[in-house]
């Protein structure tokens, strides 16, 4: 498993990154971090992803290394770090921001691309099999409410989700 940074190349640093992230709807104030480590101590994937380390890298402006790292995608999105942070840094949403930036550059893990495709085609994250529909009838459950696939897809188009996914590798 590759680590996000094995050495710091500050020459390439983007010192604006922490402000760029703070301004997004997701938010997150990396510059308030005092590196206490309470985030990492409660992280279920701390072995692979250390939130306090990611936040420090954001402060240093190591944008490319972060966006190209695999570890940002290991976040389980449990929000424990954000819940416990005494500085209200919000590491979870900082990681979401980094993933959004990576996705914009076409970097999305295959598993997520597949779910995205299903969303575009069916409006659902997972397709419902005919076996499951038959099971519903047997159980006496009403039919599954239909998704308005077209209108749903329009939202995905309007917010550039479709374009991002088409360009993703």
């Amino acid at each position: 498993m590759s680590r996000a940074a094995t050495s710091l190349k500050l020459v390439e640093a983007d010192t604006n990154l922490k402000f760029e992230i703070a301004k997004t709807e997701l938010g997150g104030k990396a510059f308030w971090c005092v590196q206490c480590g309470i985030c990492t101590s409660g992280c279920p994937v701390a072995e692979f992803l250390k939130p306090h380390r990611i936040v420090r890298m954001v402060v240093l402006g190591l944008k490319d290394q972060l966006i190209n790292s695999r570890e940002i995608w290991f976040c389980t999105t449990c929000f424990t770090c954000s819940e416990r942070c005494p500085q209200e840094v919000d590491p979870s949403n900082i990681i979401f921001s980094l993933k959004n930036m990576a996705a914009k550059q076409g970097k999305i893990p295959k598993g997520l691309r597949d779910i995205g495709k299903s969303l575009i085609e069916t409006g659902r994250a997972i397709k419902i099999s005919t076996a499951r529909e038959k099971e519903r009838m047997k159980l006496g459950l009403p039919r599954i409410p239909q998704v308005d696939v077209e209108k749903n897809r329009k939202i995905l188009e309007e917010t550039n989700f479709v374009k991002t996914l088409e360009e993703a590798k």
Partner: protein
Amino acid sequence: MKYAYYLGCLIPARLNQYDLSTRAVAKKFGIELVDLEGAGCCGTVLVRSVNFKTNLAMSARILALAKNMGFDLLVLCNGCYESLMEAEDFVKTNEDFREQLNTILKSTDNLVYEGGVKVKHLIQVLYEDIGIERLKDEIKKPFDGLRVAVHYGCHILRPSHRMKFDNAENPRILDDLVEITGAKSIYWPLKLWCCGSPILAIDRNLSLSIAGMKLKSAKEAGADCIVTICPACQIQFDILQPEISRVTGEQYNIPVLLYPQLLGLALGFTPEEVGLHLNRISAESLLKLQSKA
């Protein structure tokens, strides 16, 4: 008591028993569920990872559809709850963003959403609207001495300032609801940990090994079963339990019940009426602990 009923994606795709047991319990207490037509996925943390705005727009559309129906929303999935609560919070507190969202909703579906729909998880409806006392009065076949490892799931608890559900570090709602069935909610060290589900599509082994640690923690604490309220967690612990065993090399054999299944059985419904036969890990052993009606 009437609610717009939004199932989301995972439940109709994998867990008909959650829908079945919920409808049984809701009917018993006079909660009318009206299916929300036309709604797609809420976006969840998976879309949030790719594009936050898409996530919020998808959820805002669902809120707008519920608003048009004139009812508050009842959901069964923690992922949906999280997403919809976030969208509601953004619409209410961020004026610029509300305008952006409405431009999208207007152009795609001729919808407007200015906020105001209440999003409630099933267990909030049971806890707040029906109430512990009324539920308790209806218990016909209690599970005396059943040791339950209660699992809330992350996205109903955190971030607590937006989820507004319960104390995120020491929640009680589900524990109290479990205990009215006569069961005991036991202490288990990894209770509030994530089940690993959101990274299942990214690193399957890592995701399953997190679930494995939780199963081990529950087993070591002496749990007879785990009770969940989130379809993603239920799928991890129950449907994927054999695969988790292959990853970790450990056997667990812990039944995993959705809360309305446990409650339904205690109310006197048959195992078939709450879809117990659809759970992958057999829960037959638990039925022996039930007092006779």
